[in-house]
């Protein structure tokens, strides 16, 4: 693989807090083409990561979390189509827009690839201004139409619904984890919504880190909104994932409090009646439901059951998870 810089972890993406430049991952087996595209994109203000070995493209996408991926079609031992399929199957890369950049200019190729899920198709030689304009347009479209949660960049409701429906339609057996932050409203009221956002982002990061650490091709994570998240995974991994999320959340959360509140372990607020209320530090409650093949007729039924189990978890103090051990429903509709 010729990655022009050492790939870092997701947290040290080059533009994360410093440059605010969009990252483009360019995959082409010809170094001259890579140099050319890199130069055009860097001039247009992109941060550019290049990969000449197509077999390493997926790995580079996971490491760099690019904002857009440019793929050639013919890449020696692999193809752009195969890479796109791999990217779309992985929850970490499935939402990254993909643009094919290729010399294959037949109408058949263009139509086939656009229908198969590519976000755009540009032929070489390209007009630099047009390429950049197309990439920018694709990136704007993908954040607005895919309904990503603007705070965390995770899949939003539409994608969550689609993924649950797909698993149900395939008669797949899967686990649904429904994490929710306890005492979040008190934190928000006390510290303001901007610091409240930090709590939500902390949970989002922990969820993604835990899923990455427990690798599986069957993970999916989405942000329903507010302090609600949804994780889909293999049933055998669900409890371990829930345990790790609660543990890491409890370790991370004290740092988000002011020293006094952190030391005493609560925040104080005054009710309208004048009563002083003490609210403990925020914690996370996770409800787990195993969707047996054929048990649920709709995503709403799965969500309702998960919400019920999460409610049980929330009634207990501190961070914890509860697995629904009841017999699966005959057939929820």
């Amino acid at each position: 693989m010729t990655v022009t810089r050492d790939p870092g972890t997701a947290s040290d993406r080059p533009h994360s807090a410093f440059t605010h430049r969009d990252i483009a991952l360019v995959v082409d087996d010809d170094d001259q083409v890579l140099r050319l595209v890199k130069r055009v994109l860097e001039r247009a203000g992109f941060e550019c990561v290049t990969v000449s070995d197509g077999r390493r493209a997926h790995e580079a996408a996971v490491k760099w979390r690019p904002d857009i991926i440019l793929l050639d079609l013919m890449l020696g031992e692999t193809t752009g189509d195969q890479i796109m399929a791999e990217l779309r199957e992985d929850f970490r890369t499935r939402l990254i827009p993909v643009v094919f950049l290729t010399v294959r200019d037949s109408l058949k190729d263009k139509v086939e690839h656009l229908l198969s899920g590519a976000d755009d198709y540009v032929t070489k030689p390209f007009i630099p201004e047009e390429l950049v304009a197309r990439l920018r347009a694709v990136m704007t479209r993908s954040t607005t139409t895919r309904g990503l949660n603007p705070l965390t960049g995770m899949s939003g409701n539409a994608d969550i619904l689609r993924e649950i429906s797909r698993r149900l339609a395939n008669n797949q057996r899967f686990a649904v984890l429904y994490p929710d932050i306890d005492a979040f409203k008190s934190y928000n009221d006390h510290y303001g919504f901007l610091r409240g956002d930090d709590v939500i982002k902390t949970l989002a990061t922990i969820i993604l880190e835990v899923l990455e650490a427990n690798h599986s091709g069957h993970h999916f994570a989405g942000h329903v909104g507010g302090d609600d998240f949804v994780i889909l995974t293999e049933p055998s991994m669900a409890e371990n994932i829930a345990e790790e999320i609660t543990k890491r959340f409890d370790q991370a959360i004290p740092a988000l409090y002011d020293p006094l509140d952190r030391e005493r372990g609560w925040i104080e607020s005054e009710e309208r009646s004048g009563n002083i209320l003490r609210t403990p530090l925020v914690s996370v409650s996770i409800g787990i439901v195993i969707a047996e093949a054929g048990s649920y007729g709709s995503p709403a039924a799965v969500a309702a059951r998960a919400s019920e189990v999460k409610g049980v978890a929330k009634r207990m103090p501190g961070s914890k998870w509860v697995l629904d051990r009841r017999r699966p429903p005959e057939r929820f509709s």
Partner: protein
Amino acid sequence: MEAREKAVTTEPLQEDPSRVLVHDLRNLIAVIVQYCELIPDETGDPDAVKADIQEIRTAAERALVLIEKIPRPAKQPS
């Protein structure tokens, strides 16, 4: 999803060598055209122009090597 799978499965992993050759040649010619188009914007930067010309030369030389690999029809007996 089905359409995507179809596109993936209809794409053979091992490409036909002559198709690969045409693809690589077109890639190199695209590189040459592309660098030629960059040069007019860089007249104020002689080093950038020199670098572009070097890229064009490299691509052209690589294209010549590839052309040698194109199977030629046997010479007709005179």
